[in-house]
């Protein structure tokens, strides 16, 4: 175990995912994406894509923000969100028992396969699919977080007072300058954090971040706890609808950018499996 210090507060960081094996902890995952006002004005679809799904003991959330400068960014964001999401759902148990080097290699290889195959099939350059990537996979107490590019990852610790932003983002000096998952050496830019003492997390594109995190000091807005509360306490359908309405009607009003966010919270005892407990489908900007 080693420590990741965040604003002077140590978070416990696991070196392997073995902590999750056999744990009774379960998670819920919900995501939403909305087309920003700039794209609405141009009559275009949003370029943020979100994946949120729970399957047996594994929960996964992914948020991708297509690069405005890339010709096929929407396709890239959707492809990477869905493909990485499915990969993590399938491989969570294996990833849980691997070290960071192996985790990084597998995830980078997955992204490169997805990008290469999509570009080849469509006859387009790989770089035209440029998109950022944020993901989290949870299995028991274990959580693996990853980020390539900008956007934000927030976590909440049990018994802690509030939410903290993890320093995983890669940004240039200027707005909009970042690294994308289509980078040929994407693995070098993949920031990973393996945590075993969080009970909630939220991933967001930079558009959502501008409404939820104060840039000057990293302060997290009260809306984050409220949205996490929906996912923890409401039925999945109500939480899903509330998050979509928040993204489409409120968050987009504070930014010109597209908005994509996904919430995953721990819950000790999930309701019995039923229609509500099923998977949350990938949500895409529309």
């Amino acid at each position, binding site marked *: 175990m080693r420590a990741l210090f965040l604003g002077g507060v140590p978070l416990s960081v696991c070196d392997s995912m073995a902590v999750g094996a056999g744990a009774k902890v379960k998670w819920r995952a919900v995501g939403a994406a909305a087309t920003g006002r700039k794209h609405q004005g141009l009559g275009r679809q949003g370029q943020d894509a979100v994946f949120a799904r729970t399957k047996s003991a594994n929960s996964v959330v992914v948020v991708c923000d297509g690069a405005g400068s890339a010709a096929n960014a929407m396709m890239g964001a959707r492809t990477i969100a869905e493909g990485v999401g499915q990969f993590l759902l399938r491989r969570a148990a294996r990833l849980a028992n691997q070290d960071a080097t192996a985790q990084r290699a597998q995830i980078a290889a997955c992204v490169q396969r997805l990008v290469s195959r999509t570009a080849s099939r469509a006859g387009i350059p790989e770089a035209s699919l440029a998109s950022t990537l944020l993901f989290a996979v949870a299995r028991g107490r274990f959580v693996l977080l990853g980020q390539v590019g900008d956007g934000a990852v927030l976590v909440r610790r049990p018994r802690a007072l509030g939410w903290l932003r993890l320093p995983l983002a890669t*940004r240039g000096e200027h707005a*909009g300058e*970042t*690294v994308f998952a289509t980078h040929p050496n994407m693995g070098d830019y993949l920031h990973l954090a393996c945590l075993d003492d969080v009970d909630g997390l939220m991933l967001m594109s930079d558009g959502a971040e501008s409404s939820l995190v104060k840039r000057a*000091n990293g302060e997290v807005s009260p809306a984050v706890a409220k949205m996490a509360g929906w996912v923890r306490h409401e039925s999945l359908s*109500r939480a899903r609808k*509330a998050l979509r309405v*928040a993204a489409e009607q409120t968050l987009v*009003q504070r930014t010109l950018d597209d908005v994509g966010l996904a919430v995953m919270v721990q819950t000790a005892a999930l309701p019995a499996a039923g229609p509500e407990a099923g998977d949350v489908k990938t949500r895409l900007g529309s």
Partner: protein
Amino acid sequence: MDDELRIRFDELTDNPSARVPISLVLDVSGSMEGPPIAELNRAIVWFMQALQQDEIAASAAEVNVVTFGGHVNVVAPFRDINRQQISRLGANGNTPMGGAVITALAELDQVKRQYQETGTDYYQPWLVLMTDGAPTDDITQAVNECQKRVAGRKLTVFPIAIGHAANVTVLSQFSQHLPPMRMDAVNLTEFFSWLSASVSQVVGTSMPGDGGAMDATEEAFKNAGTISWGRAIERV
């Protein structure tokens, strides 16, 4: 839907919108007297109005004006577009272009520091350099500073030659990858229309931070004269 399942605006963070700082470095030397300075004044008014009327541009653009004619003058410091006041420019004196560019770069550095202190995101700054002649001061330091920043993708320089007496060889030294555009003064309004539209284009557009790609605005400027804003505009 219940109120508990809605986010109120007061529950959100209010970050300042990302800014595009634009420095207009304008030749107001004696040779601009008459129709050229009148066209330049008209174009600046047009530019400010175009920015104000575009919701995206109005929230992002911050413009300052540095003139060189006899001496260097910061006519208008960086300010929010809706509060910016630019007085009418007159023309006289020689052409201290080097000093004006150095002053503009210092103003850009200062506004960037203000952005950083207030947690305001900003896009790569633009410097529009317009002249109808040739410098009468030493431009070595100004050229070196511009080239260093352009190479490091810290600045985009748009060099504009007004009329046929403008020295494009000198102008071309300020920007390695954007060659100067030559235009008649009557075309300045078209250029500024294109520039204001480009602000909206660049805002919200993410791009690789490794300097590997030219942004869409620079690409459009390179192709200008054929696709964007050129009638009597000549690629030099």
